[in-house]
C-alpha cells in the first residue's frame, strides 16, 4: 500500500509541472498583460506602461521567461506575484484554509442531506417521498450556483436579515455559501444513493438476509447501504473537483477570501505567477483527495484490500 501511495504521489509531479508550463504558454496567447489590466479608469501612457513592464521583467523574451520559471519551479519556487510582489506560495497558503473550510462544509451539506434523501427515495420507491426527493435532487442539480447564491443573499441576508451576506468570520458567514455550493453536490449524491440502493436492495444477498429473519434496519444499513458505499465515495472524491471549481464562483459571490477569489482576481489582472500557482495547488488538492478516496476503498470493500476485487 505504501509503495502504491508513493508511486501515485511521484506520478503527479511531472503532471503538475507540465500543467504549470502549459498554463504559462496559454497565457502568452491571451492578449493583454498585467500592465494593461491595471488600467481601469486611470489610463497610462505607453511610456508609463513600458516602464512598468521593464520593472516586472515582462519585456524579456517568452522562452527566457518560461525557462526561468521552469527552473525556479523545479527548485520549489513558484515566483512572486506581479501585483503584490509577494511570494506566490505564501499568498496561496494564506488563502487555502478559507477554501478548505468552505469545501468541507459543502461536503457535509452534500452528505448529510444527500444520503438520507437518496435512502428515503430508494426505500419508498415510486411513492410521493421518492418523487419529492428526486424533484428536489433535480432542482438542486439544475440551479446555477451563482444564481442560488445571489438569491440566498437577497432573501436571507438582505430581506430577512437572518444571516450576513458576506464575510468570513464565524460560522454564520459560512452557512449560505456552504449551502449554495453544496446543494448541487447534494443532488448528485442523493440520486446516486437512490440508484445504488435500488439495485442493491434487489440483490440475492439482501433477499437472503431478509429470509434469515434479519430486521429491516439491519438489512438496509448493514448489508445494502454498506455495499452501495464504494460508488458513493468515488463520487464524493470526484465532486471535490467540482466543489473546487464551484468555490471559485461562490467565494466571489459571497466576497469570501480563498483560492477561488485569488485565482479569479489574478486572471482578471493577468497575474500569471499566481494563476499558475493557484491552478497547481487546486490540481494537487484534487489529486490528494482522490488518493484518499482510493485508499478508503480498501476499508469499504475487503475484496479490494485482499486483491479479490478488480
Amino acid at each position: 500500500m505504501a509503495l502504491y501511495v508513493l508511486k501515485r504521489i511521484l506520478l503527479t509531479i511531472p503532471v503538475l509541472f507540465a500543467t504549470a508550463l502549459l498554463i504559462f504558454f496559454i497565457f502568452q496567447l491571451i492578449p493583454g498583460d498585467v500592465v494593461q489590466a491595471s488600467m481601469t479608469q486611470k489610463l497610462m501612457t505607453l511610456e508609463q506602461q513600458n516602464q512598468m513592464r521593464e520593472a516586472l521583467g515582462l519585456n524579456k523574451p517568452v522562452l527566457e521567461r518560461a525557462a526561468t520559471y521552469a527552473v525556479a519551479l523545479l527548485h520549489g519556487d513558484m515566483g512572486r506575484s506581479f501585483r503584490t510582489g509577494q511570494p506566490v506560495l505564501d499568498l496561496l497558503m494564506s488563502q487555502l484554509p478559507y477554501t478548505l473550510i468552505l469545501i468541507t462544509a459543502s461536503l457535509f451539506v452534500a452528505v448529510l442531506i444527500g444520503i438520507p434523501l437518496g435512502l428515503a427515495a430508494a426505500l419508498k420507491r415510486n411513492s410521493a417521498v421518492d418523487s419529492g426527493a428526486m424533484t428536489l435532487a433535480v432542482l438542486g442539480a439544475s440551479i446555477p450556483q451563482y444564481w442560488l447564491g445571489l438569491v440566498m443573499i437577497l432573501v436571507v441576508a438582505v430581506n430577512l436579515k437572518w444571516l450576513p451576506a458576506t464575510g468570513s468570520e464565524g460560522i454564520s458567514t459560512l452557512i449560505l455559501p456552504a449551502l449554495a455550493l453544496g446543494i448541487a453536490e447534494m443532488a448528485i449524491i442523493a440520486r446516486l444513493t437512490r440508484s445504488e440502493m435500488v439495485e442493491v436492495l434487489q440483490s440475492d444477498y439482501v433477499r437472503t438476509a431478509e429470509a434469515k429473519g434479519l430486521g429491516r434496519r439491519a438489512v438496509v444499513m448493514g448489508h445494502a447501504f454498506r455495499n452501495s458505499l464504494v460508488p458513493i465515495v468515488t463520487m464524493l472524491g470526484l465532486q471535490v473537483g467540482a466543489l473546487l471549481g464551484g468555490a471559485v464562483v461562490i467565494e466571489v459571490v459571497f466576497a469570501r477570501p480563498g483560492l477561488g477569489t485569488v485565482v479569479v482576481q489574478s486572471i482578471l489582472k493577468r497575474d500569471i505567477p499566481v494563476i499558475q500557482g493557484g491552478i497547481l495547488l487546486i490540481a494537487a488538492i484534487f489529486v490528494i483527495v482522490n488518493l484518499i478516496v482510493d485508499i478508503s476503498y480498501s476499508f469499504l470493500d475487503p475484496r479490494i484490500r485482499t486483491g479479490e476485487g478488480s
Partner: protein
Amino acid sequence: MRRSTGVVFAVVASLLVVACGSSTTSPSPASSQGASSAPAASQPAGSEPAPSSASGGGGGDLIFGGNQEPAGLDPYSAITVDALQVTGQIYETLLNIPQGQLTPVAGIATSWENNADFTSFTFKLRDGMKFQNGDPLDAAAVAAHFDRLKNDSATPSTVMAALKLVYTGATVVDPLTVTLNFSKPQTAMYLTLADPGSAITDAKYVQSVGADAPRMPMGSGPFKFVKWTQGVEIDLAKNPDWTWGNPDVMGTAGPAKLDTLTFKYLNDPQTRTAAVEAGDVQFIDLVPFQNLGSLRTNDKLTTLGIPLPGLPQGNWMNTQIAPFDDLAVRQAAEYAVDRSAIISTVYFDLVKPAYGPLTPDFPDYDPAVETMYPFNPDKAKSLLDGAGWVPDATTGLRMKDGKSLTVRILENRGWNDWVTVLQDQLRNVGFDAQVVTEEGGGYYAAAGSQKYEMPAMGSIDTNPVQVMSYSTAANLAGGVNGFGQDPKIEKMYTDALGEIDPAKRTALIKEWQDYVMQQAYWVSIFEFQFFSAFDKNVQGLKVDGTGFYKYFANVTMN
C-alpha cells in the same frame, strides 16, 4: 455497518484538517505618542489659511466595501484607485485639491512657489508634524521621500514614474522649507503633488521595513494602519496625534472622529450592493448603475455621485481604417449620437452629457464643443449619402462599392454600458454597427492593435495636458489613443507640455479640443461618475477634487 459509515464520514472529515491561521501583517514600530502642534501661519501667493483648532470626538466604526483588494499600500508604488483610497487615509500630500475644484490648496505645505521656468518648486511646511512612528515630518523627510525616485528599486506609481524621469534632487533650505528641482518644466506640478499617488512617505521607515513596505504602511495622516488580513480586510485606527489637517479639504483639523476604519473588498458588484443593504458594510463604492434605482429608494441609505475630471466616457473613431478614414463618415457618426437617450436609457438620467475630449471641470474647457454636433440623424444620413454610402433597400444598412458600412465598437466589459445604445443609434442612420467585448488587459491589447473602428475609452485625470497625451501617436500601441495620428495634434501637445504661461497653455488646450472635434476623432458621451452608497448614519464625508477619493477624517456614525 457503523464502521463503514464511519469511514464515509472519515473521508469527509479528513478534509477538515483546516488551519485557522491567516496572513496578517501589522506594523512593528511603536506608534508615537503625545503632542500636537499649532499650524503655521499663512503665506503669500499659493497659500492657504491655517486650519482651525483641533476637534475630535464622535467615535464609531465604519466598514468600507471596496472593489478590489489593493496589491500594496505604499503610495510610492500603488497604482490602483482602490489602493489610493486606503493610502489617502494613512498618508498626506504636500497639497490637496478640495471637492468641486481643480485648484490646489494647502496640504502639509502651507505655501508654495516656483521659479520662472517651472523647474524648481519651494514649499513651506507646517510646523510640528510627525509620522505615526514619531519621526518628524519636516523638510528633510520630504526631501528623503522624493529621493526615493533615485534610490528606491520599487516600481513607482504612474505619478511618481513621471517625476522619476525629470527629478534632479531636493534642497533642504531650513527645517520647514524644501525645494524640489526638475530637469524640465513641470507646469502641472501642483496638481501632481495633490494626487494621492505622490503622498509623502517616511523614507527612513520604508528602508527599515524593506520589501514589506507595501504591506506595512505608515504615514502622517488621520488614520494609522493596524493590520491587513489578506483576502479579508485592512484595519485602520484613528491617529490621535493628527491635528494639522486642512478643514477645507478634510472637514476637520483632526484628530479623526471615527475610532476605526475597516476596508473590505467585495469584488462582485451585486454582492457589494447586497452587503450595504444587509448592513454588513456601511459604505460601498463603484455602485453599478443598474443597482442605483433600488439603493436610492432605500430610506436607510444615501447615494452620492460626483462627476470625475479627465477624458469623458466616449469612443475614438479610428482614422487608420475604413470607413472612419473619411471625415464625412466620422461627422455622420457624431450627428447620429443622441446622448440624452443614452443617458436616460442606460444611466437613469444620473449623469451629464459630454461633448468634447475634456470634462468641463477644467478651467481650460472649451464650451464651443457643446454645439458642434447636435443630435441630427437627418444630417448624418445626408453626410453618408454625400460620401457615397447608399442604404440597402431591405436592411437600411449602407453599402459602397460592394462593401458594407461596418464599424465595430470595442467595449471594455463592465465599463462601457452605453455601447449597445450607441450601436442602435448608429444602425438607425445606416451603419452596420457591431459590439466587440473584451475585458481588462485584453481590452487594451485589442485597442492597441488599432484594428477596431470605435474603441470606447475614458480616464480620470486632473491634468488636462495628460489627457491631451492620450491623442498622441506615442500612445497608439498602448491602447489609449484609438483614433490614429495627426501632426497638428502632436505639435499642440508638445507646445502645451512646454508652455509655462498658463494663459497660453489654456489657449493651446482649447485649440486641441476644438481641433479634435472638428476632425471628429472622438465621440463624447457623458461625464463619468463613480457612485457611492452609504448608511444614513454616516455623516461628515468629504471628497477630494477628483471626485473619487473619499476622506473619512470628519466622518461620524450617528
